[in-house]
């Protein structure tokens, strides 16, 4: 426990401390996800593979397959928007963290969290426009997708991508994904990759590293 004297010392140290401002990390290369909204059948195998790998109980979901369905016969539609952490160019979660638990990797732009440093203030969870940081009520701390950095470093792809039976989810250099030059079966030869779909938060907030093959009803003009 901190004694009273310590507290006074900390306060004095805080007063002395130079004002600091946050300078975003510019990665050498930015990895990102690509998801085909149209061909995804919503089986949620990616969600389960993710929960399995990260040992998550019911509740927190690093990845979420969202069902967007509706219309009146014969004009009906159903498509999925599938998001985990978008490993943003300018992550909103990062500057909110008081303990430095969240960081952006210089090598590949992955936004990782060291949950053992988390004190559970849940600011990152609120700040993220895409709902990526997930509060684990069992451990009272926040955890999130780190694109399976261990797998990436071993030269493999994340669990969600490997579990996708429709092959509609993939990762790659985000510039290649947006250009359409990434070699992946998630994007068909006639498909265009878009940065934003309807009802996803404004991408200008944090510049998320994600590409979608959007459904005709979900395209943003």
């Amino acid at each position, binding site marked *: 426990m901190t004694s009273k004297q310590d507290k006074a010392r900390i306060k004095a140290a805080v007063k002395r401390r130079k004002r*600091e401002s946050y300078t975003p990390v510019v990665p050498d290369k930015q990895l990102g996800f690509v998801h085909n909204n149209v061909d995804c059948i919503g089986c949620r195998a990616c969600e389960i593979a993710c929960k399995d790998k990260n040992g998550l109980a019911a509740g927190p979901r690093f990845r979420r397959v969202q069902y967007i369905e509706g219309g009146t016969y014969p004009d009906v539609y159903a498509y999925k928007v599938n998001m985990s952490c978008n490993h943003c160019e300018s992550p909103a979660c990062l500057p909110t963290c008081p303990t430095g638990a969240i960081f952006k990797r210089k090598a590949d732009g992955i936004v990782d969290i060291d949950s053992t*440093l988390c004190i559970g203030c849940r600011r990152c969870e609120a700040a993220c426009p895409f709902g990526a940081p997930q509060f684990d009520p069992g451990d009272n701390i926040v955890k999130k997708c780190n694109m399976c950095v261990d797998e990436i470093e071993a030269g493999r792809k994340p669990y969600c991508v490997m579990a996708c039976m429709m092959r509609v989810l993939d990762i790659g250099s985000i510039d290649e994904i947006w250009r359409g030059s990434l070699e992946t079966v998630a994007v068909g030869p006639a498909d265009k990759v878009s940065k934003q779909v309807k009802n996803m938060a404004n991408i200008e907030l944090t510049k998320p590293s994600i590409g979608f093959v959007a459904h005709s009803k979900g395209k943003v003009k």
Partner: protein
Amino acid sequence: MILPIRTLIPLLLPMLLSIDPVLARDIGPEDYERSRWHPIHFKPDIDNASNEQCLSCHQEILDRKVLNHSPAGITSTEVLAWYQTLSTYEGEQETFHRRHLVTPMATELMDLKCNTCHQGNDLREEAANPPDHNNQDLTLRKSVNPDICLMCHGAIAYELMGLPAPWTESRKNFQNNCLLCHSYIRTERHQVNYLKADAIEAAGKANSDVCYGCHGGRQWYRIAYPYPRHPWKSMSSITPGWARDRPTESEPRFQKEIQQAAN
């Protein structure tokens, strides 16, 4: 004339609610699904929900404290985020809900209500049907539209203000004093029902870090919020190009005359 019942529901429900506000005891904690789909969680009822009603079920958002130690042993009293090195930051680490509602600075300067931010989407999988990009009340994976956060957590638009560099670099040239210019430019500010305009003016006068705290210091997002341009006394009659599409009034929900988003 017989009005269809669908037209009557939105008219009648707020009336009923104002007579007898729904509280937790009326629903019962055992009935989770019933409470989840209760009309108070949706528009239009949520706009008239009082904090008392919300907290009668969701009290834990104010009771919850941060951990004293992280799992790896980081002590919460010894850590600071970047923005917390500003001179306005004080007190121990707190959860974000408490920082917005009950901590000293929150009660001094703000008058936020649960429904200032929360507009009723707790399902996180819900999108407008048919998908409508102009209606961001239902943002995918979020229970609050991040544009509401942007009102305080956006970037400082230093280029529009004509500053040579971001405030962190140019503050020295302006004696770290926002009111050097803003005592005569854009003086009609903070006239919304979720802020205490007079208290903010007084605090900003005493310490410009208070201004910067919201307008850039606690910046989570890379863009600035296009604040409505309430006309001020010495305002030029020529509207600059960047301000041509700006509203001159706040959204009705936030206007002072309509006490919807505040107590």
